């Protein structure tokens, strides 16, 4: 065995005060009294639940209008995709790409990557532990960029309130979209990346024991 995890040795770091403790002896931290966890509790289960909820809400987020524009020239409801199409058609390709990336690609990519991570841990696919960790880092990096649309709507609704001339109202899609982003972030948080390496350790252990047996 080339390396051992703290958890494998029965150690756990207190998440509050940082004292190393042995949960086998004391369930709570001996210094600050916080509950000791070797890994995030029920990590896979929680991540799955939040991720599934995010997937479900992703559908109405894209189908429902996120913004209703009422002006002298009539009322118009826009979904995210119709906004992107409008921007693309009106020549603002760069803006269209940014909105498309931030609002459609990034959340979807995030959820798909998270799915891969959780699935690999659950089904103990030990192989690419390093790439998976990189994926996790990427996940944390891009997660914060996916609320762009919600910001745009929030700003526009606050700004454009020229009553009889033009008003912009948030549509139900914004709620769903916001929920998708928040849920996917929570799912990322619920996922414990150390589990990736736990699988690796387990596999190595079993192969070692196989080797000794052999």
């Amino acid at each position, binding site marked *: *065995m080339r390396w*051992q*995890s703290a*958890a*494998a*040795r*029965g150690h756990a770091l207190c998440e509050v005060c940082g004292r190393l403790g042995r*949960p*086998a002896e004391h*369930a709570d931290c001996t210094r600050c009294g916080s509950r000791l*966890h*070797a*890994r995030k*509790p*029920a*990590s*896979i*289960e*929680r991540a799955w*639940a*939040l991720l*599934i*909820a*995010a997937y*479900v*809400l992703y*559908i*109405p987020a894209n*189908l*429902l209008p996120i913004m209703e524009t009422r002006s*002298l*020239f*009539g*009322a*118009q409801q826009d979904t995210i995709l*119709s906004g992107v199409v409008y921007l693309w058609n009106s020549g603002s390709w760069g803006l269209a790409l940014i909105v498309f990336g931030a609002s459609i690609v990034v959340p979807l990519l995030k959820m798909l990557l998270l799915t891969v991570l959780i699935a690999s*841990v*659950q089904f*103990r696919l030990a192989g690419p532990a390093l790439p998976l960790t990189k994926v996790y880092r990427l996940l944390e990096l891009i997660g914060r960029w996916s609320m762009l649309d919600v910001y745009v709507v929030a700003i526009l609704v606050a700004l454009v309130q020229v009553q009889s001339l033009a008003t912009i109202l948030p549509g*139900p899609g914004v709620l*769903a979209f916001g*929920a998708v982003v928040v*849920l996917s972030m929570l799912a990322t948080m619920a996922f414990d990346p150390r*589990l990736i390496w*736990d*699988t690796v*350790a*387990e596999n190595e252990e079993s192969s070692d024991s196989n080797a000794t047996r052999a």
Partner: protein
Amino acid sequence: MTQTPPVPEDFPSTVDKQRPRFSVIWIVPVLAILVGIGLAVQAIRARGPEINLQFSVAEGLEAGKTRVKFKDVAIGTVSDIALSDDQKSVRVSVQMDKQAEGLIVEDTRFWVVRPRIAAGGVSGLATLLSGVYIAMDPGKSTQESSDFVGLESPPQITSATPGRQFQLKADDLGSLDVGVPVYYRRIPVGRVASYAMQKDGKGVDVNVFIDAPYDAFVTTDTRFWHASGIDVALNSEGVKVDMQSLASLVAGGIAFATPESPGEEAAPRAPESSIFPLHQNHTAALRVPDRIVQKYLMTFNESVRGLAVGASVDYRGLTVGEVTRIDMRFSREAAQFLILVEVNLYPERFLRRVRHTDAGDAGSEQSRKVVDMMVKRGFRAQLRTASIVSGQRYIALDFFKNAKAAQVDWSHGTPELPTQSGTLDSLEDQILLIVESLRKTVGHVDALVVRMDKEVIPELTTTLGEARQTLKSADQALASDSPTQVDLRDTLREVSKAAASMRNLADMLEREPEALLRGKKGD
């Protein structure tokens, strides 16, 4: 190798262990699914039928943006615009809302609301800013449908407008147009909804819509007429100018009225979409319609110049029929062409007070008897001149006491009335006679003038010369420097002197009356 210490039972597993119980966290996806299902159900329930409209052009329409409105409530959105299969029109797909269900039936009408300027007014101005929308008028049918042909112009009448529609049959459209008002007692109470050529091309059908509550005034007895333009009538009371309104003068119009006939119960209300004739003017409209028409033939052996189809047939001044045809016929017995005139007689005009009598057709036994009897008493047709100036002629029916005996010829399909040779011929003779005697009179006058010229005038001239001389000498005698005048003046002077002496004498005698006896007192 280091020994791994035993892991206690309650220590969380390094690798995920299957937990027997359900974690609270699963409420989140369940909630999300419920919300999702809820939204989906809501969306599906809000979706109504999808329909296809056919328009000639898609001007102003935009997929995903143009709304379908009913009573100004958006109840659908245009989802797609494409050319129709035959590429001759535009197919507009519309996703209707749930609330539009039941409104989309076979006779529902759709049209595009655009700004429009017509003689009747301006409409759809709001769409200048907001863009066009598709308006609809739900039909009354119960048969649902999904394919419609859109109207090119907004219908004048929507099903929501209370009132009734009637059909008018006119010879021509005149200056009418869709939207032109219909007047009752000069109040606009409806408008022309549509018009169409009759299938045989022999007239025009005009559909008019009368708004409630005025539609109650349309009875089975109501007359409609063209109220376009000015109606000028010349009668014994002078010139009468009649017009409905200035608007109708420009844009045309239709008026209606129900003639009031005392002693008769009011006619019942006309049922929806009853058919009425559209008369040319007020007078024509209020004429009692002639339901019974009897055709008669008349043969004239004289010129019918001035007699036209449509000329009136009258009986002692009352018009009782009209000329419908003027023809020629060769008569073998007379060996010449005779003028054959066909007339329509309206026996109802004789018998107006006696409605629904069996005046019947000309062939009925009873009317035959009556006509035969009348002819026996001298009932004849005669050509008369209505106006010497225009030469218009009409046919007069009258009793002629000295008429030659004649009979009605019932042998043909159309009975033939005997005729009396026109008054015009005798009139012409008389006029000729008058002209002749006038000419003689003029000759006499001429002779008289000549004689006066020859005999009277010279005498008159000499008499005048003498008179002038007399006047001249009188003038001379009266001139101030004439001897007569001078003499006269001298004489007068002498007389005045004599008078003065007389006055002196009188004075002296008054003072000294004795002087008369003794003589003048010596001074």
